[in-house]
């Protein structure tokens, strides 16, 4: 009973204890906030990685796509391959949706303020509706956000803008023809000027839509005042030319598309490089009709079925080295591992804050014990055992740790829940964005409070507080009562 009483009284009356509590509180709050933000970033990143990749991906290294043969030795089309996958007894109920895609590198060209811009991109040919069924696509579209039936169809405004662009270009071309450029006949590499007359009378090809990454179509820069300015470089209806390599042979092929929507995943890597075009059109451009380079599969229950599905798919494709089957986690393994390693190292470093709090507990407890020499002697003269005295000081450490953790948890959760408001205030005060949105393409700082993480942080902090109170507590317990009573 006396241990509880003395711990409580020491906590109420010793102002030095307040320093220990504040140390633990700050350490715990910092760990909770940093973990919540790291976890928020990590979760958002994982969501994006998962969303774009779907649950299981089947792909091939071959540039001309899969060459899976049927019983007669004929290559299967993507549709036949889907039928083959879905007719498997094990896979049938475990696969919710499947879609074929072609993924390749390309160069995207477009005109911006009179100059031609060329960007390397990742070109993906999809069937928009089945791709949307797999997930991780429609929810990131800007105009067709969340649509169950997204498409590459052009809106009336987009067609109107395309017509206007075309007329503008024809007018400029006609003007340049009126004043023909003289060729430099001394230069054997000189390119002859464009002769628009050639195209006259030829019917215009059917325009195909393309969904481009938001960061490709929008340029961000800082103005003179340091403010981030976003300028639209590609509007809906604007022409883009995509040049890629042929499927059969590695010779350049190209196609013209009109921007019909943007992909905004808030993942700069994707938003800066992804361009989606209709699968059938890409098959035609690349000369690989009836072929695909990848299949995106959504499972009914990912956690439950991921292993059995990948195993069965490998069996189905006879473990062909040309066919690679992997879950989204295996696909992004190095990146996910890097996130975990980064988080682990950061936690280790931040736990040193709690370590510092532990050392302040050690220092303050040593002071308190030396102040309490006589009280320890009194307690022992009244019958308190060495173990009892040890328990008083360990209990005191436990109490300080617990109170510090409780306050730190409260503070950490409050900061995390209001981190965007705090960031706005800090940015206002300093005149500099603490969290520049243009770097991360996030509207706000993502946070994710995980109760298990909080429990682990609190348990670690309380254990540290107890551990560091052990040495002074042991010293107090081993004091000789007579020597303690005579201490002045």
């Amino acid at each position, binding site marked *: 009973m*006396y241990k509880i009483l003395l711990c409580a009284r020491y906590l*109420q009356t010793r102002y030095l204890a307040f320093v220990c509590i504040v140390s633990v509180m700050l350490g715990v709050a910092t760990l909770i906030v940093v973990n919540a933000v790291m976890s928020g970033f990590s979760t958002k990143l994982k969501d994006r990685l998962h969303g774009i990749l779907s649950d299981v991906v089947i792909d091939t290294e071959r540039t001309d796509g899969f060459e899976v043969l049927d019983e007669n030795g004929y290559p299967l089309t993507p549709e036949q391959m889907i039928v083959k996958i879905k007719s498997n007894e094990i896979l049938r109920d475990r696969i919710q949706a499947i879609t074929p895609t072609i993924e390749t590198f390309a160069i995207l060209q477009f005109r911006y303020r009179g100059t031609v811009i060329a960007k390397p991109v990742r070109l993906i040919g999809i069937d928009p509706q089945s791709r949307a069924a797999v997930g991780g696509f429609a929810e990131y579209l800007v105009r067709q956000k969340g649509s169950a039936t997204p498409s590459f169809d052009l809106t009336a405004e987009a067609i109107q803008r395309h017509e206007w662009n075309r007329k503008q270009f024809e007018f400029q071309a006609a003007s340049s023809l009126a004043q023909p450029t003289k060729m430099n006949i001394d230069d054997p590499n000189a390119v002859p000027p464009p002769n628009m007359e050639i195209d006259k009378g030829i019917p215009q090809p059917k325009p195909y839509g393309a969904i481009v990454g938001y960061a490709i179509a929008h340029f961000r820069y800082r103005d003179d005042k340091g403010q981030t300015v976003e300028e639209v470089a590609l509007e809906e209806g604007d022409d883009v030319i995509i040049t890629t390599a042929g499927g059969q042979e590695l010779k350049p092929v190209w196609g013209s598309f009109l921007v019909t929507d943007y992909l905004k995943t808030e993942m700069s890597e994707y938003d800066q490089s992804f361009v989606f075009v209709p699968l059938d059109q890409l098959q035609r451009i690349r000369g690989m009709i009836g072929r695909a380079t990848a299949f995106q599969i959504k499972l009914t229950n990912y956690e439950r079925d991921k292993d059995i599905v990948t195993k069965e798919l490998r069996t189905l494709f006879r473990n062909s080295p040309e066919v690679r089957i992997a879950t989204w986690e295996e696909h992004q393994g190095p990146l996910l591992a890097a996130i975990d390693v980064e988080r682990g190292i950061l936690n280790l470093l931040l736990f040193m804050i709690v370590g510092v709090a532990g050392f302040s507990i050690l220092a303050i407890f040593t002071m308190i014990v030396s102040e309490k020499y006589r009280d320890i*002697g009194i307690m022992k003269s009244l*019958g308190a055992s060495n173990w009892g005295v040890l328990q008083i000081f360990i209990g005191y450490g436990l109490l300080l740790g617990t109170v510090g953790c409780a306050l730190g948890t409260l503070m950490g959760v409050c900061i995390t829940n209001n981190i965007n408001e705090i960031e706005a205030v800090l940015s206002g005060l300093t005149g500099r964005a603490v969290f520049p949105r243009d770097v991360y393409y996030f509207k706000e700082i993502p946070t994710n409070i995980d109760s298990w993480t909080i429990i682990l942080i609190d348990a670690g902090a309380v254990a540290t507080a107890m551990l560091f109170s052990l040495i002074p507590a042991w010293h107090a317990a081993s004091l000789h009562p007579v020597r303690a009573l005579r201490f002045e």
Partner: protein
Amino acid sequence: MLMARDIWKTYRRDAVEVRVLNGLNLEVHTGEFLSIVGASGSGKSTLLHLLGVLDKPDSGEIILDGKRIDNLPSKERDRLRNRTFGYIFQFYHLLPELSTLDNVLMPAYVAHSFMNWWQTRRQWRKRAHELLEKVGLSLRIKHRPRELSGGEMQRAAIARALIMNPRVLLADEPTGNLDADSGRVIIQLLREINREEGVTIIMVTHNLDIVPMTDRVVRMCNGQITDDPGLLPSSSTAQLLITV
């Protein structure tokens, strides 16, 4: 009742040795109010600590009711200090964070686990109130030690020493830090406790004025009892003091 037989005690610090008790022998009778007098450094306080099992002799025996207690395991020694002996110190030694009531109750807190205390707290509080009333501190129950006078603190310390109904009170210079009037009040209180409750009291003191109020006085010199007339009437005690 309580006996010290051939007690030797030496304090050591580094290479320096100070012999405090040299084969001391003493017998204390049940219900006796014994005072121990002697010069500073004669070993009075050390003897008190050894009798109350706060410390161990280098050799010799401390016997309580025929049973040796100096070599008991620490748990039993702790229990003896809590239940059998009550301590009164020169500097009161109250815990500054606690109220007068909590200081008086401290030995009871030590003796009980949380659950036991919860079940018996009312009877202990009642006893603490009775004791505080007896020592004249019933209006100072919630005061902290720093808010009490020296005499009041010593009376609170006496109440604390009595809370567990000890058989032996060990008082180390109980009036040493008090003025003459307060000192007299404390000794009268101890005498009253000795007579009414039959508590054996062993008091170490320098104050020869208060010694006539005790049953017996022994003198210590160089770590030994040099004058022990045995149990004497008060007049004989006064006579002995003339020689001290």
